[in-house]
């Protein structure tokens, strides 16, 4: 039996666009309302109930409804006040008002983000062995904001896949491209970076096809799909859309940080201004500070001049990276390296030099704000950031007009302004790839190395100078920005020890210097004068304390396209025929005039002709609200997926979604205000018999909430939950010993203050150690895309609920709340505790059980059998510790009920 999606997708006149669907299903939805039917959703649901001989359940009571709606839309339980307000609201529109209020809550975005971030495989680390932290939380905040702002879903898709390609892309639109960047990244020493880039592109291809199309295109990576009409060629054509990006980081403007930085800059400027005044008086009798400065400055200048040479910066004409980093020529003739960060690399750069009698070259390595720690290197592993290792340098020359007449240049006598111990520039000439020049310890500053030519080089009509820079330290220690200059100064030529602009000012006769140059020279001197070391330390400390702008992972389209090949058997080492971007033939075709890029792909996904994206999306909403999709396999709409229970309803919802302008809140409101959703979730023996799996929706499903919300519920009931939104991910307490099982990496420093009690969506997600108490409750591992969470029910969950320190902490805080906020009599306290944990009043039996339990536990404490102060730990001994301890146990029991963690 072929599946309905493909059954409806023949290459015939029946090709089912949303518009065509609208015609198919409109007549059905127009059935009259009335009776049980509240909106068109019910028409379809009731119809299938009738066909299968079941009938609707009565509407759920108001206590159930208010908790259900809160858990579904916010992932949080209602407060006792909210429960009472809704239960006692006489307004016939009370329920609709409730839904509107919840959709307007900022916590709605957090709730929706939890599911979307599974699909986006969002995590705060790179994965694999090193599993280093990565900054991408601004993307998570973008998702939350987009849901809260009710961004139309088509825009939501376009910005995440191709926000950077939109005309005049805003910062937020670029941040959105973090969606694709969430692929894992292997930085283990010695990996072939290209291989893991391939894996990342495969991951992106699979993610896009699963999340938006509900297709298991991944099957076609190694061979054409066995069941669905997707070929391997089509797989790599789809892949080709995504295969032309540089993975870069960008700064995200943060007004608070900017303000703080400005304030510090002002202070630093004042200190710099003060420097001349802090210059000490001379050691000679009567020499004033000013005179001393003039004398030392002049002496220094003379000394620099003796080492300085006239350098001519060369303009790069051709430049390549062996391992696909992107080299960009900058206005100052330097080359900036961005994009892929291979473990090792070789840059080959050609220059035209018009100078005659070249005697030496100088390589300046320059800082850049885009580089880690400001550069000049790209190293981040085994480095504070910004280091590199230039293993070997080699040069050839040829006449510009006869570029084939290549001759080797012999380089000699390397010098540098700074080198780490044992890493002098001379090691870049020793023929060994495991030694070389490094500036480790002086990152963030410009440096230079000078290499003499054994014999001067001159060519009529200019010289074609080619450089080869091997960088073979295996941990990404490649150069991030560099500039090359030549000189014809007589040998020996050495590194001057000062930045190139200073060197050139020194060589400019004083009379010819501009006022600005003179000032620059003086400022530089003041910044290095040994007499001012103390002042420099103050300035350095202030610089070091400067807060940094948040950064986030984004995409950038490459200017030089990458070629996509069909990889034989899907294997990285077997590239075959080249292909260009394209979409599977079985789906709607691309607009003929559009350029074949990511933006076109994104627009194609949400075009009216695309039959899948809207269906797949509303199906996931349905899955979120009903615990099961209309297609029960949201990840697979293909022939191997399960059949939809209500195909026409799904089609109608998809049409409606598109018709509403992809209005997510409207779609959720539509579903949640249906009679189907408002039914009771009780399972009667008749329902058990007729529809055990609830396929026909004759009751509302009962579903255990998502992992994140389990902790959110406990924190919320206890009053501990922080309402703070956004920002870097936080590290709540981790069960002891959990870190011992992973590769040693960044420590798990437990958050303090309210960050300890943030919502689960903000928990730091470490891929090799996904938050253990969340994983116990089936959180998605976030390694690859996940559009459906499994729900298990295990003893480890019980151990977590019963014994985890955070659950105990919440139980204690909730006990405090009950004792402080409820009237002091036992029934009122019990009622309040029920309201906090379960959003309903207790029945008489429950009152009795709790009371009995309370007395039993009090007796234990009073008799000294148990120690209340150990259970109710507090800094200041409270008078009623026993009472609090007893209530802690009650609250713990309530939070441990199945009901507390279930949406029903």
């Amino acid at each position, binding site marked *: 039996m072929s599946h309905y999606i493909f059954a409806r997708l023949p290459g015939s006149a029946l090709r089912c666009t949303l518009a065509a669907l609208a015609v198919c299903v409109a007549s059905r939805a127009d059935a009259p309302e009335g009776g049980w039917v509240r909106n068109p959703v019910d028409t379809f649901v009731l119809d299938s109930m009738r066909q299968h001989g079941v009938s609707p359940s009565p509407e759920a009571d108001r206590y159930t409804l208010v908790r259900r709606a809160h858990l579904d839309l916010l992932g949080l339980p209602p407060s006792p006040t909210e429960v009472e307000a809704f239960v006692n609201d006489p307004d016939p529109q009370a329920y609709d008002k409730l839904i509107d209020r919840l959709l307007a809550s900022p916590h709605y975005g957090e709730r929706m983000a939890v599911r979307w971030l599974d699909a986006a495989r969002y995590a705060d680390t790179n*994965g*694999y*062995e090193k599993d280093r932290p990565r900054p991408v939380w601004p993307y998570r905040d973008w998702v939350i904001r987009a849901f809260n702002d009710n961004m139309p879903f088509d825009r939501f898709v376009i910005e995440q896949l191709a926000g950077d390609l939109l005309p005049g892309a805003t910062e937020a639109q670029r941040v959105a491209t973090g969606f694709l960047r969430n692929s894992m990244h292997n930085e*283990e*020493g*010695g990996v*072939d970076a290209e291989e893991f880039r391939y*894996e990342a592109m495969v991951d992106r291809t699979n993610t896009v096809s699963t999340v938006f199309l509900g297709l*298991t295109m991944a*099957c076609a990576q*190694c061979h054409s799909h066995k069941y*669905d009409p997707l070929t391997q060629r089509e797989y790599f054509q789809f892949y080709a859309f995504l295969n032309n990006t540089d993975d870069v980081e960008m700064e995200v403007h943060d007004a608070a940080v900017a303000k703080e930085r400005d304030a510090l800059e002002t202070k630093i400027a004042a200190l710099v201004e003060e420097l001349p005044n802090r210059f000490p008086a001379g050691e000679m009798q009567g020499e004033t500070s000013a005179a001393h400065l003039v004398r030392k400055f002049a002496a220094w200048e003379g000394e620099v001049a003796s080492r300085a040479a006239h350098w001519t910066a060369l303009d790069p004409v051709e430049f390549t990276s062996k391992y696909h980093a992107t080299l960009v020529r900058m206005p100052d003739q330097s080359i900036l390296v961005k994009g892929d960060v291979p473990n090792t690399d070789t840059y080959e750069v050609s220059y035209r030099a018009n100078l005659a009698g070249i005697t030496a070259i100088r390589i300046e390595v320059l800082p850049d704000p885009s580089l880690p720690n400001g550069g000049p290197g790209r190293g981040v592993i085994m480095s504070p950031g910004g280091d590199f290792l230039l293993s070997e340098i080699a040069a050839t020359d040829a006449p510009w007009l006869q570029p084939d007449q290549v001759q080797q240049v012999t380089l000699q006598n390397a010098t540098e302004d700074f080198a780490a111990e044992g890493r002098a520039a001379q090691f870049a000439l020793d023929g060994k790839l495991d030694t070389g020049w490094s500036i480790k310890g002086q990152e963030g500053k410009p440096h230079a190395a000078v290499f003499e030519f054994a014999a001067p080089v001159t060519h009529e009509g200019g010289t074609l100078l080619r450089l080869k820079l091997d960088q073979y*330290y*295996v941990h990404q220690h490649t150069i991030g920005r560099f500039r090359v200059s030549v000189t014809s100064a007589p040998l020996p030529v050495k590194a001057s020890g000062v930045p190139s602009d200073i060197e050139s000012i020194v060589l400019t006769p004083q009379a010819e210097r501009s006022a600005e140059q003179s000032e620059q020279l003086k400022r530089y001197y003041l910044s290095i004068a040994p007499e001012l070391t103390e002042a420099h330390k103050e300035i350095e400390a202030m610089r070091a304390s400067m807060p940094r702008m948040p950064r986030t992972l984004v995409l950038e389209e490459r200017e030089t396209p990458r070629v996509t090949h069909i990889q034989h058997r899907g294997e990285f080492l077997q590239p075959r025929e080249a292909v260009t971007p394209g979409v599977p033939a079985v789906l709607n075709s691309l607009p003929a005039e559009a350029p074949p890029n990511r933006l076109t792909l994104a627009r194609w996904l949400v075009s009216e002709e695309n039959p899948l994206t809207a269906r797949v999306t509303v199906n996931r909403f349905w899955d979120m609200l009903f615990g099961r999709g209309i297609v029960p396999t949201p990840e697979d709409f*293909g*022939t*191997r*997926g*399960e059949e939809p229970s209500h195909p026409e309803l799904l089609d109608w919802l998809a049409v409606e979604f598109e018709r509403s302008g992809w209005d997510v809140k409207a779609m959720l409101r539509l579903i949640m205000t249906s009679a189907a959703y408002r039914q009771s*979730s*009780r399972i*009667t*023996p008749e329902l*058990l*018999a007729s529809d*055990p*799996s609830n396929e026909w929706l004759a009751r509302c499903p*009962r579903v*255990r909430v998502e992992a994140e919300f389990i902790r959110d519920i406990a924190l919320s009931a206890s009053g501990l939950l922080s309402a703070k939104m956004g920002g870097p991910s936080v590290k709540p307490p981790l*069960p002891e010993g959990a870190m*011992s*099982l*992973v*590769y040693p990496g960044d420590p798990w420093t437990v958050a303090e203050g309210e960050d300890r009690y943030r919502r689960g969506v903000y928990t730091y997600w470490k*891929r*090799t150690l996904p938050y253990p*108490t969340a*994983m116990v409750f089936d959180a998605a591992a976030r*390694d690859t895309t996940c559009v459906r969470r*499994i*729900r298990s*029910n295990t*003893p*480890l969950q019980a*151990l977590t609920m*019963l*014994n985890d320190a955070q659950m*105990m902490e919440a139980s204690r805080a909730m006990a405090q709340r009950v004792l402080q906020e409820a009237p002091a009599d036992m029934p009122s306290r019990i009622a309040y505790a029920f309201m906090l944990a379960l959003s309903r009043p207790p029945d008489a039996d429950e009152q009795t059980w709790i009371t009995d*339990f309370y007395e039993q*536990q009090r007796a*234990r404490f009073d008799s000294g059998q*148990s120690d*209340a102060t*150990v259970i109710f730990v507090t800094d200041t001994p409270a008078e009623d510790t026993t009472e609090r*301890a007893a209530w802690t146990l009650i609250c713990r*029991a309530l939070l*441990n*009920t*199945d009901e507390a963690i279930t949406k*029903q």
Partner: protein
Amino acid sequence: MNRHSQQQDAVHAITRRHFFRDCGVGLGKIALASLLCGRAASANLNNPLAPRPAHFPAKAKRIIYLFMAGAPSQLDLFDNKPVLKQYDGKPIPEEIVKDQRYAFIQRDAALMASRFSFAKHGQSGAELSEMLPHLATVVDDIAIVRSVTTSQFNHAPAQIFMNTGSPQLGRPSMGAWVTYGLGSDAADLPGFVVLATGEGSSGGANNWGCGFMPTVYQGVPFRSEGDAILNVSSPQGIDAAMQRDSLDLIGKLNRRHLEVHGDPEIATRINSYEMAYRMQTSAPELMDLSGESPETLAQYGVEPGKASFAKNCLLARRLIERGVRFVNVYHGGWDHHSDVAGGLKAQCGATDQATAALLTDLKQRGLLDETLVVWGGEFGRTPMVESSAALGRSLGRDHHPQAFTMWMAGGGIKAGHTLGSTDDLGFNITERPVHVHDIQATILHLLGLEHTRLTYRFKGRDFRLTDVFGNLVPELIA
């Protein structure tokens, strides 16, 4: 409608659909009542870890997998290469290394002979290095494969590959597959337990993850000190009686809710809490070594109160005795890019005695016949020396996926057999290559599972531990 395999049905045991299909529709209160009676009733109903029959009868019922994370050097332990001595310090011939990819070393690196001597042991005459004196005493109980090969040459992907059949994250691990296929006989402990010492493993939790399977099949890390399982101890101040009272109250509330709502998922929850309560007793009991004789402790080299590989080996035996299906013992620290000789002395010192003791102990207790023991890392190490001034390395060996050694012992294994060989330099396999997928297929087979039939449907595809590969290695099977 039903395209699911039998195994997949077991997974659905945790959903109410399956519950009612298996238990018979209309059992109603009777079914619910029996569910509430605790242990007896909980054994089979609604329990995805209930023991399930194998595909075919097999000797091995359980498995202890000793995973040597970081990749031990086969050339210094198992694969003796006298010819390397002649070439020591000389560059490796270009025709051998062409087209090979390496993690750290350069192609023209010199060859390095082992610094250790080798000797033949036991009736089988298997050759072992002097670094493995204890294993030498039980060498007739093991089958050595000197020709294992993998396609991954970096730690994280290779470990994940060995454990899940794919270098990419997100697939179920071998332990998950085995417990999914066979369930577990352990009433009060998880079916798949992970123990670890040494440096952490590069693959992390993915090495014992359940991928797209339900979390019941995930490996549960046991710590050898403190609480064995995260959160297995009651919070401070809550003694057993108070915990029992609390469970009774929770049980009452849950049962009332079950009566009202009729959702069998609540019954499962009640059972989970009861099982959790039993684990609170069984886990400390497992960890309590006071019942072990001083001879046994000495045999393994266990120092009470100290976490060690030796202690984990002993715990592995205790777990097996309690019916746990899959015990994964990790020991990290074999990644000897520098000073391979010194590194091996340290790691063999930490593991050799206990490894041999585990085999002896299992044998003495009559458990070896029905327990499969597997030993190995994620790849091998190069015959070429690794040295790097930049990285501060000398006399090390780099990653070598082409050929490495593993061994197996116990249930169904042809003990005393040595399989496969490599060339004179130990670079390439010359006889009987055994791929990682073949190892996986063979392990499953020894446990009575046919690797092509053990499938799980996800994203429209029937996944296997062996992907679309894997051939049984009949030479290893008794």
